[in-house]
């Protein structure tokens, strides 16, 4: 009898926890899909945005990157070309 009660409690606990986790998972996936669609539509309307930025590092060297949202130059220390670089969609690449 005790075992049956324990089993019952265990099953109910698992069901509650599983339902909680599935609920979280579903809402996350739905929002992901929704945002992905909005991004795809916006991309379709604008013909697909992309940007490229290049930084001359001196001595014939350079760094560049390409992004689909935002590109910019990154500054470095005063008085030095070291530490300068480029940034595309959040990724920084230094000279």
């Amino acid at each position, binding site marked *: 009898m005790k075992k049956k009660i324990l089993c019952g409690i*265990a099953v109910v*606990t698992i069901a509650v926890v599983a339902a909680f*986790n599935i609920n979280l998972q579903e809402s996350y996936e739905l*929002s992901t899909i929704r945002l992905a669609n909005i991004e795809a539509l916006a991309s379709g309307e604008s013909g697909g945005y992309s940007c490229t930025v290049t930084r001359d590092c001196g001595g014939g060297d350079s760094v560049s990157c390409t992004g689909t949202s*935002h590109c910019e130059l990154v500054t470095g220390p005063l*008085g030095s070309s070291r530490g300068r670089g480029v940034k595309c969609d959040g990724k920084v*690449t*230094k000279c």
Partner: protein
Amino acid sequence: MEKLLNASRLTYNPNIQNMISKIRFSILISCVLVLFNSCQNQLPEINLSKELSVDVIADSIYFLNVGCMTSHEGEIFFINGHEDNIITLNEDLSLIKIIGTRGQGPNELLGLNKFSIKDSLMAVLTGGNNRINIFNLNGRLLKEHGLNNTDIRFHSGYRFVFNGREIIGSSSLADTPLTIYNINNQRQSFFGEKYEFPLLSQATIRNDRHTLISDEGFIVVSDNMPFIEVYDIKTNMLKYKYDYSTIGQVGRSLNEIKNKGRQNQGSNSYYTLCQDVYFADNYLYILFANYTNGYRVNELVKFELTSSIKPISILKLPGKIYSSFCVSKEFIYGYNSAENTIERFKL
């Protein structure tokens, strides 16, 4: 006793035992998952709606690469990279004045990076001219401090503090990441705790930080690590350090950064987490990059910062990418770099 043993052997069923052990394992895993979920602090999200927006002022001044937005006594200051000058707007986003003109000559600015205001003075770092310029807030140049023949180490790409005679900010040196430079006597000292990385090249490029000031001390925020540090103003010793990766929204973005880093991170590159920071009225705001659904930079984490650091909420801006922002008593101002607009939101 013998009967009892026999009875237990009779009731022993390997299938039931197997099922019970599976149930126990499931309960254990579920408890671990619930605990893990509760450890990540999911902050309440507040959607801010745009009240005002401008993309051109005085009929012909457009914005590009706006940075270092600063609210000071009812005026909004920011660098306009399009013209290499500093623009001042009132709270209704109308032009008040323009400070500086582009050029390499005396009194001119080139490659404006960051500025900082103390009372009626403004220190401006210009990477193109390699100078520190001191203006009054009416736009009159008071002092031009050239750094061409000096060995000064100061990173011009991060917010810094100006106290009237010294600039305090990122040094660009990994071992001593923060520095104080006295403009009057040209003395420089270093402090700060280093972040360790497996590669030396990563330690070199990932130890720079934004520096702000509060009554508690210097507030220091990395652009790529989820840390807020507070250093004592007098001793320059680390008072405390806060890891904000425990905030659910930030933690998920960091997981994406880890996944991206495994795929395509070179030794000379990294992903930014913090785009910009601002401190106002005992609250610290961090504009962080969210990589979970593509790349978005439109969420501010708001922290209460008194004798400790307490995350309060996430403020969501309506645009997709913002590169700088500031906070006044009533409003938040942001530069929407996808639209090239300055926007105002009710706080």
